[in-house]
């Protein structure tokens, strides 16, 4: 089953080609659409909502043709824009109720669904206050709520983590994950930050200059290469022997031991082995290839510029090389 299918989809404006013969199939689940600013993400969303005609090619959303059944698609799809879209003098409840009715929900259902949805996105007492006083994180939650309030089959989220601090970003990514796992709604989420989508998405589609660079399942390349980097103060060779004897596969690179992660017991085995030898454990951290490395393109100046503007660890585009994903023990 496909949620979104495009076939040789192109969109040309007089001066620029926003989409260039894009052919992708997107299956249910969370799909990350990655590309630098101007890569064609917003144009694709416009076409998928039936709001702009494609120059050539065709696209279907939930089995409906975007060229002929735009209204039908928009009834079953939720959309969260990248920019601010909330009037400040209205409360979140009133606003989302109105948007629910605009999606065709009868008054009573609109009120019930609004209360439910706002609670699910984590907005409680503050939902009765005018939205002008909300923090960026709260505004993003309301924007997500209005996209979910009519229980769509698919939501299109345009840069939902924009402007959020790292903690807020993690909250939002967790919420997006739940939209699929708990609510059963498929998600297409765009970002120019590759790193943040790998934790959230089942699939990643990378476009650049309107062209498809790569479409793959996240697990294809992030989970198979999981390994544990272990650094100890002394006696690496003996530790290596002990670990091998315990049935683990490990190699020595420099003064680091790279241990393949089998299951959670791997951590215990390493810990016990280190303790048994009586040496100090400097660090133990999970390593895996990140999507960023696989897609990193040194010539992609657009991505570099983006990375420079957001110097966070998630911006792995500009910082290839193996970075730990956390869980370091010192």
């Amino acid at each position, binding site marked *: 089953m496909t949620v979104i299918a495009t076939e040789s989809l192109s969109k040309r404006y007089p001066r620029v080609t926003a989409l260039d013969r894009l052919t992708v199939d997107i299956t249910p689940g969370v799909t990350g659409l990655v590309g630098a600013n101007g890569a064609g993400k*917003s144009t694709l*969303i*416009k076409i998928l*909502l039936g*709001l*702009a005609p494609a120059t050539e090619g065709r696209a279907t959303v939930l089995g409906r043709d975007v060229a002929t059944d735009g*209204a*039908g698609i*928009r*009834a079953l*799809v*939720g*959309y969260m*824009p990248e*920019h*601010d*879209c*909330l*009037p*400040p*003098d*209205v409360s979140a409840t*009133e606003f989302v109720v*109105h*948007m629910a*009715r*605009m*999606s*065709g*929900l*009868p008054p009573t*259902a609109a009120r019930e*669904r609004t209360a*439910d949805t706002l*609670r*699910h*996105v*984590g907005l409680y007492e503050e939902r009765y206050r*005018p939205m002008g006083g909300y923090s960026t994180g709260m505004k993003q939650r309301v924007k997500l709520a*209005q996209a979910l309030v*009519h*229980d769509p089959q698919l939501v299109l989220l345009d840069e939902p983590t924009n402007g959020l601090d*790292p*903690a807020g970003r*993690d*909250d939002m*990514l*967790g*919420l997006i*994950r739940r939209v699929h796992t*708990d*609510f*059963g709604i498929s998600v297409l989420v765009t970002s120019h930050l590759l790193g943040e989508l790998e*934790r*959230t998405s089942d699939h990643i589609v990378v476009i650049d200059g309107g062209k498809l660079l790569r479409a793959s399942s996240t697990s294809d390349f992030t989970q198979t290469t999981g390994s544990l980097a272990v650094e100890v103060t002394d006696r690496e060779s003996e530790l290596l022997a002990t670990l091998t004897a315990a049935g683990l596969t490990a190699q020595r690179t420099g003064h680091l031991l790279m241990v393949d992660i089998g299951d959670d017991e791997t951590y215990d085995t390493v810990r016990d082995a280190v303790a048994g030898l009586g040496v100090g454990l400097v660090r133990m951290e999970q390593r895996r290839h990140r999507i960023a490395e696989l897609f990193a393109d040194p010539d992609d100046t657009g991505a570099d510029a983006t990375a420079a503007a957001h110097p966070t*660890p998630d911006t792995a585009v500009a910082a290839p090389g193996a970075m730990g*994903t*956390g869980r370091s023990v010192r």
Partner: protein
Amino acid sequence: MTQPDLAPTDVIHDIGYRSYDGPRLGRRYARKSLYVQSLRGAYGLGRSAKSKVLPMILFAVMCLPALIIVALTIFTDRKDLPLQYTRYAVVLQAVITLFVASQAPQAVSRDLRFKTTPLYFSRPIEAVDYVVAKFAALASALFLLTAAPLLILYIGALLAKLSFGHQTAGFAKGLVSIALLSLLFAGIGLVIAAVTPRRGFGVAAVITLFVISYGAVSAVQGVADNQEKWHVIGWLGLFSPITLIDGFQTWFLDATSAFPDAAGPPNAAAGTAYLLVILAILAGSFGLLMRRYRKAGLS
């Protein structure tokens, strides 16, 4: 980096997600919902207390003279109301202009300024539904504003035991006139407001257009009056919104014109011209609004 599953917030969700499989009522219902919301919004209902102040004051100011007239009529035993039903809106045009100037931008500029329009157009409605709903909502708000005092006059006239037939006919003509006035003012106001996301600009532009055009028409009519060219006076009314209505109702609804010397449209050609110009402005403003929103899309 924190792991998503360790995030401290949004974890208390004992009730699971419930999906919705009730009815989805589609475009017509959505258009009606937008109409109702915009109509309420024009009087500040469903918005902050602050935004109720101006429309409510204007509504009260609009009704006050009618109450005074009714009181006068009842206590002085007059045979007729001192003011024609059709004249009321012309006399109080400043209040109506202020209402259009303040509420047309609130109807459309707000959605543009806060970029709410993409949320509408990512839903089943089309641009035409949005335009129809907003147009109808502002016109209805204006009709309420102008019909309320006429209703007060009519009820007052009946209480004063004035001629029922004569009063009813006058009231009906008044309603026809203000219906057309509401549509005309709403169309012009919305076109101007939809150009700019800045509310202040919209307010200023609407006031300027109504006041300057009326001022200019009145001034030139005054000059024509001095030179005793009465048929020119009748034609000049085509150039401002309120005088258009005045000319129309003088010719078609048998009203007394508020022009100098009550010189309404001089002949059938002029009378028809008033109707045609009004219809052309209505069609034109609808067309311009459609053009404005057809391209609005998601940005």
